[in-house]
């Protein structure tokens, strides 16, 4: 919806971690998302709320459960607006050069 909300939502490592978890397995309940992570249920709920406001996740009710789905559409909009525009090909050349100079293999 608006870029500010997307960037703000992405500015927090816990929220990025929640997105990663949904990327691994889409359509999880709050309980599943809280499982095995060191964060209070209440904070997870708050983070999910901010992600939903930024339209980075969407939710679907199924019976008594609420399932969370990653919604990458706003990320593509950010990509189109802020990355592709600034000449992707040159960026990837620079990226390769940096990898080469830093001697990192990926």
């Amino acid at each position, binding site marked *: *919806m608006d870029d500010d909300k997307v960037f703000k939502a992405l500015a927090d490592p816990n929220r990025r971690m929640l997105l990663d978890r949904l990327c691994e397995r*889409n359509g999880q309940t709050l309980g599943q998302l809280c499982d095995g992570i060191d964060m209070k249920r209440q904070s997870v709920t708050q983070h999910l709320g901010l992600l939903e406001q930024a*339209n980075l996740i969407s939710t*679907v009710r199924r019976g008594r459960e609420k399932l969370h*789905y990653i*919604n990458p*559409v706003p990320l*593509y*909009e950010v990509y*189109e607006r802020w990355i592709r525009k600034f000449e992707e090909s040159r960026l990837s050349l620079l990226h390769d050069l940096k990898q080469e100079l830093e001697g990192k293999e990926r």
Partner: protein
Amino acid sequence: MTDKSASFVYVTYIRTTPEKVFEAITRPEIARRYWGHENVSSDWKPGSAWQHVRTDATRTVDLVGTVLESDPPRRLVLNWANESQKNDPDAYSRVTFDIKTQGDMVQLTVVHDELQPGSGMLNGISQGWPLVLSSMKSFLETGLGFDL
């Protein structure tokens, strides 16, 4: 029984009208401007066939399916499969377009479900939908889609 448990939910907000969104999906001359494909059906009525056709000179039919529900401009439900798998019932997944007005925006929700986990279709659509939906948004708001 075949596992068809995988699903995706995509949402985008577009500054336009529900009618324009519905047309952008169902009218070939509009879809071709932002999708790189046209969606072709004789009447978009339940039971009718539809095809997803490349706009390039080859006019390749990439996807085929049937219209399951149609309630313009609010809702359209299709099933779909790769053209090469059209005779395999398990290859069909389901796509629901839900179009709602929200303030001065339209909320378009695309639910793609009944997908086989790990299938090529699942891979393809998880790359494809975000791109198509952002391109549709850009096209409806600015007149320019992306080059898909």
